């Protein structure tokens, strides 16, 4: 074969490969453009559960037992009452680990406006304060959230996941709270003597 044609063929094959590569990259980008917000498509796998119902994720089991509120709360170990400009929402829950020692790292409340409130760091939380769950051992404790009073105008959901901050594609339990109404919040706000319950082993 003519050496010139051989060189042209070789160059042509390189050019074709480069063009194919660029087309693939372009196609990948267009797929990403279709759904760019990774926060959305890496969102946690949320499983909705009713209050009182026990649900198992891959690594822990949990049930939200009850909810109450207060205008000020005191740590289980005592100290000064912590007031609030809003309302304290106190959730009682039971939890255990499934496959090994675990923590539930993420405790938050989501309101109807999609605002997310982390469990408070102003009080010494029992079950949320770094308590390690052991497999097969159920414990019960309270978690306190500080929220504005207007959260009571819509639904309020407890969110629980293993990792505190990075909840991407994580299992997440979502429990809609019953009984958090405007009138209930008004009543709770006058209670300034509430004390967070200590965490106990129940079975």
């Amino acid at each position, binding site marked *: 074969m003519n050496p010139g044609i051989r060189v042209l063929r070789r160059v042509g094959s390189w050019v074709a490969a480069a063009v194919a590569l660029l087309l693939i990259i372009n196609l990948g980008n267009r797929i*990403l453009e279709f759904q*760019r*917000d*990774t*926060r959305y498509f*890496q969102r946690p796998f949320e499983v909705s559960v009713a209050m009182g119902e026990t649900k198992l994720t891959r690594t822990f089991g949990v049930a939200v037992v009850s909810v109450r509120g207060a205008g000020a709360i005191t740590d289980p170990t005592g100290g*000064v009452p*912590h*007031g*609030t*400009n*809003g309302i304290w929402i106190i959730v009682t829950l039971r939890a255990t680990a499934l496959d090994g020692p675990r923590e539930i790292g993420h405790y*938050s409340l989501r309101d109807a*406006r*999609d*605002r*997310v*409130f*982390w469990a*408070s*760091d*102003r009080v010494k939380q029992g079950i949320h304060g770094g308590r390690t769950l052991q497999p097969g051992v159920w414990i019960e404790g309270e978690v306190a959230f*500080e*929220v*504005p009073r*207007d959260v009571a105008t819509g639904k309020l959901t407890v969110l629980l996941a293993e990792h505190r901050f990075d909840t991407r594609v994580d299992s997440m339990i979502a429990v809609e709270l019953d009984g958090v109404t405007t009138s209930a919040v008004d009543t709770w706000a006058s209670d300034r003597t509430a004390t967070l319950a200590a965490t106990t082993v129940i079975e």
Partner: protein
Amino acid sequence: MSSTYGGQGGDGVYHVGPYGGLRDWLSLHRVVAGLVALAAVATIPFGGLNKADAGRYGGLARVEVGQAYDAGPWRVTVTGGRLLKDQPPLRAKKKTNRWVIVLATVEVTADETRNDTLDILRISGAEKLAGDEPDTIMLRSDYSLLPALHPGLPEQLIFGWEQDATAAVPASIDVIIWGKTLRMNSLTESEEWLDHGERAVLTVPVQDRRNA
């Protein structure tokens, strides 16, 4: 032989070449005046001399004590400044240090609890501070340290900077409100609060209450 383009030739006569007239016209004060004019013109793309008069914070919004300012994830209202001796609940790392205090109300306007309260304020105009970041931030209500702030719940905060006892007593300080912008992160391609930077400035009188 004489120079073609001017200058004093061997014959002692000053020869005027093509640039001779310009050279005569250029004197020291004319050159200096020209350079000053050039420098003034050069400032025009950057806002001209009006901006320069406003000092280092000329590009920032000016707010007043007691005026709320939206700086992205938070709305900040600076309410006052104090100079305090080291006393509980403050706890200086160096016992002789005193405290420059800024009082402010902060409301998170983002849709999720934030724990980056250290990013909200900086001060200028006080000498010999321990650092740029506040050395302490606490709730005014119960002195909770470095509290996370929740959406829709305005909180009165105490921002404290340790100051060396030998520093001059500040009569006033500049408080700079820092902010962030919610935008797409080009690396993670998700919306995040980024571009942490100065947004607004105000001058706050400092009340000396070391003996109160």
